[in-house]
């Protein structure tokens, strides 16, 4: 039986992605003013957050900025138990952790982000959630640490 060999290679790759006007404006408002901005399609009127340059449905350019709240409604959720390497740190992300799609008030699309809950029985589609912000913002969606469930009192105060 031939001894079978394996040849190993480790590569460290790094990239520098050019960003665009809509990213720059979104990040500026997020970092400097703690405001979230979406872009509205002139044809279907859908508000996209995160912002896009073009509406995928209508193929129309998006230019109208719209204020979006940092709280909204949970539209999907899961608790992740499988560790994967967090690309931002290069380390395994500790599990379990909650993920959700949150439709922020004022937006028509949902934002994929973390939700601070590890018990799936405590999460429900339709529940309200709000962002928990970092003390110091650097200009990335990670300036929101995660979302957290709003209790009824908090929800009422939002109205």
């Amino acid at each position, binding site marked *: 039986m*031939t*001894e*079978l*060999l*394996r*040849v*190993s*290679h*480790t*590569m*460290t*790759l*790094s*990239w*520098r*992605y*050019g*960003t665009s006007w809509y*990213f*720059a404006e979104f*990040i500026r408002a997020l*970092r400097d003013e703690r405001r979230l901005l979406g872009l509205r399609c002139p044809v279907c009127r859908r508000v996209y957050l995160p912002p896009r340059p073009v509406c995928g449905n209508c193929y129309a350019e998006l230019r109208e900025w719209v204020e979006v709240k940092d709280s909204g409604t949970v539209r999907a959720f899961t608790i992740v138990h499988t560790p994967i*390497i967090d*690309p*931002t740190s*290069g380390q395994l992300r500790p599990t379990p952790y909650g993920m959700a799609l949150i439709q922020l008030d004022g937006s028509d699309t949902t934002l994929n982000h973390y939700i601070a809950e590890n018990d799936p029985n405590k999460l429900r589609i339709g529940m309200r959630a709000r962002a928990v912000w970092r003390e110091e913002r*650097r*200009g*990335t969606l990670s300036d929101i640490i995660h979302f957290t469930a709003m209790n009824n009192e908090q929800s009422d105060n939002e109205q």
Partner: protein
Amino acid sequence: MNNNGFVTAGVNLSFNYAAGEAASRFLIALRDEKKIWGTRCPACQRVLVPARSFCPRCFVDTGEWVEVEPAGTVSAFAPLSPLLPGEGPGVRVGLALIHLDGADTALAHFIGEADAPQIGLRVVAVFAESRSGHILDIAYFKPTET
């Protein structure tokens, strides 16, 4: 992290490629015997080095294993300075295609200990002290003493 209109990102990736039976046998011969083997295609009769399980031109399994000389002739050469990112000037002076005696294909490898390598130079393999079953069990090829 956003910095003047750019988003930077990085990742570490590790890969672990199977050599397969033919390449394993070739690499083990480098490691254990300091010998270089080729395989012959029964259709075109060429001896392919490194040894491989099929001939890519004829698309048939290779048959006979043929030992080739650890010496041959340079058929192409490119001086590289520095040779690899981070590697300073030293023994290895460039990359070459080497037609080993008995082989019908050329092997891509390093040239070392040479002042002015050029096409036609006769070279011989220098094996690494510590070998693991890897193409760099041959450290480089150096000019043959005449």
